[in-house]
């Protein structure tokens, strides 16, 4: 089943207003007089939500869901088109500046599509960068920058007759949006919501789930607590949901949990479709030993090449018959700098490893340590 037919939303008034302004300010003759950055900074000084380029949202409420999970209720500005276009299960990319560095993270929307206020629910990752920042530093009234909603983990139109929403831990967020959507749309079919977590204290959305259960007659709500019910297995899933094979399923949770369910699905060759969303924001690309051949994909030109040996990426690209822009070839001038969208590279001069997505790298002093996607 394909779910990629996003509805094409008509442009909002804010987009209609800001788009020609954006084009005008980006014109080289105008740019030489007033920079778009100056316009944006001025607008931000007037009001932090005011922008002609960025969708932003103000934090209006922060809810403690569990001791390590918080829900941030956000009021988006008019440039955020998700109120019309967002579908249950989709995510937004949040952009923050932490200690001077821009960082981006993906969070599923847990709110009902079309709601005036949107929400994301964030579990604090020990040793993480963004989630502790959100938990400790972000206050009510702060303004965050966010992307338009995106993602293919969505409910189809028309809806199937039997649905299973299956989640574990903080993977509950996108399926919670789906559940809210089903309720709001008056879904007449049969929906099972099965969530797995350690114990009642770790249950995210406990209050909201109880309320929905009372109001939404078609819902069977099942919660599995690992501490008291034992580890969650395929057998337990089959036992809890006997008609599993007939249920179109949407699943989100930790990798181990999802692997168990996927294996079960495959070994019984279940007919009903299983959709899943990995909520690990950064797909871990395994780092290879220096000199291992890896594939380098160039996003803009659509070209690709296979590396050979331990030469830097600039030399590798040239060996492959490409001619990327470059200058000094010894890591000084930055002419060969480009954005690495994903993968791991090592800086030959400093030994620094860059494995975060969307980092600027210099081709002449970087060697590939995994498959790469470059903005070239």
């Amino acid at each position, binding site marked *: 089943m394909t779910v990629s037919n996003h509805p094409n939303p008509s442009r909002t008034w804010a987009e209609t207003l800001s788009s020609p302004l954006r084009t005008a300010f980006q014109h080289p003759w105008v740019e030489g007089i007033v920079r778009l950055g100056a316009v944006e900074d001025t607008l931000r000084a007037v009001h932090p939500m005011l922008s002609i380029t960025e969708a932003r949202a103000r934090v209006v409420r922060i809810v403690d869901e569990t001791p390590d999970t918080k829900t941030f209720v956000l009021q988006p500005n008019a440039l955020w088109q998700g109120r019309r276009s967002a579908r249950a299960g989709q995510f937004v990319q949040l952009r923050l500046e932490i200690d*001077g560095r821009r960082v981006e993270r993906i969070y599923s929307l847990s709110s009902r599509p079309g709601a005036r206020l949107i929400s994301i629910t964030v579990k604090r990752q020990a040793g993480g960068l963004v989630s502790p920042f959100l938990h400790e530093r972000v206050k009510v009234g702060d303004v965050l920058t966010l992307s338009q909603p995106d993602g293919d983990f969505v409910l189809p139109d028309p809806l199937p007759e039997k649905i299973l929403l299956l989640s574990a831990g903080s993977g509950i967020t996108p399926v919670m949006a789906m559940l809210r959507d089903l309720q709001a749309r008056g879904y007449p079919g049969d929906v099972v919501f099965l969530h797995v977590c350690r114990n009642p204290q770790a249950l995210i959305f406990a209050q909201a789930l109880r309320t929905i259960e009372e109001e939404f007659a078609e819902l069977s709500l099942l919660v599995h607590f690992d501490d008291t019910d034992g580890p969650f297995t395929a057998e337990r899933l089959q036992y809890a949901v006997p008609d599993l094979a007939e249920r179109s399923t949407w699943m989100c949770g930790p990798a181990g949990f999802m692997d168990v369910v996927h294996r079960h699905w495959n070994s019984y060759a279940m007919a009903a479709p299983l959709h899943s969303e990995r909520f690990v924001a950064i797909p871990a690309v395994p780092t290879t030993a220096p000199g291992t051949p890896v594939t380098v994909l160039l996003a803009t030109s659509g070209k690709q090449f296979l590396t050979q040996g331990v030469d830097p990426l600039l030399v590798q690209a040239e060996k492959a018959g490409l001619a990327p822009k470059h200058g000094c070839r010894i890591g000084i001038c930055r002419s060969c700098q480009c954005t690495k969208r994903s993968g791991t590279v090592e800086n030959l001069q400093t030994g620094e490893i860059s494995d975060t997505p*969307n980092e600027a790298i210099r081709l002449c002093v970087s060697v590939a340590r995994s498959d790469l996607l470059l903005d070239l």
Partner: protein
Amino acid sequence: MSFAQPTHLTRDQIDAFEREVNAIRDSVMTTLGQRDVDHIRRMIRICRASEIGGRALLHFGIGPLSWVAGVMALANAKILDNMEIGHNVMHGQYDWTGDPALNSQKFEWDIACDAEQWRHSHNVTHHTFTNILGRDRDLGYSLLRMTDAQRWKPRHWLQPLANLMLALGFQYGVGSHDLEIGKYTHGAMPKPEFKARLDRFLSKTGKQWFKDYLLFPALALWSAPRVLAGNFAANLIRNLWTYVIIFCGHFTDGVAIYREEDTRNETRGDWYLRQLSGSSNLTGGRFFHIMSGHLSHQIEHHLFPDMPAHRYPEVAPKIQALCEKYGLFYNTGGLFKQYLSVMKRILTHTLPPRRTAPAPV
């Protein structure tokens, strides 16, 4: 001025020097954060406020005093934009922030020089081949004879005049630098390549003229002459100031010049040594350093071109101590003293070399 003597340091000492310089670099680069971003954004804010204030004074002010104040404010904005902001941002000093407004490869500045051409002539050519005769095109800007190693030609009689013209129109000197007119007239550059470079230069200059000499004067209606003259004066002040600072960076007394054959197979340590001996600093306070875009720390800048420049004063004492330890010359002095030595050098090399007995071969 003759070519740099081979260093007195042994291979092992050069390697040790390299490691120590790297350690100084790391001590700053591992602590980049909020305060560096705050600094550059503050500079950008001051620059914008100064430009708005300056233009407002020129447009709406009455009397000569407000004109002078307007010129000073606008010149201040242009100097900040070119020196502390543009030059440093385009070196990639703030690329680690991920902020597109501080992206080295996308930045454009308020000067007749096209940013992309600057990134080539300055970041690629000058910073890589610093003070290598025949490779570093900043050595006399293909206009002035700065060393005995450059062949004297009769046109060098006019060198003091050429120097004055370059100072007054420095933005056009910098802007046309990457055209490599000499290379083209000698047939070493194909015409389409030269044409493309020329178009880029003219397009940027055209935009600057449109802004400063057409649009803003026109907007001032009857004050047009006042605004036109004010904009011209502000550009002139910026030209003179940037010229003085930049000429003190590599043309002072005691700066070493290199032969290309001596710089082949350089290690990072060799490269550091060449950057150190090929640059000279200016002493001054915090305000002076900012107004010079921290090019008053030319030595530190050439060692660490992508370190946020406002950190140079922090590493300068460590570099100076290192120089003492290895017995290396750390070239620094006041602006007046340093510029005087530059002028002396320009005038000395105006004259044809004295005929001396041919050196024994």
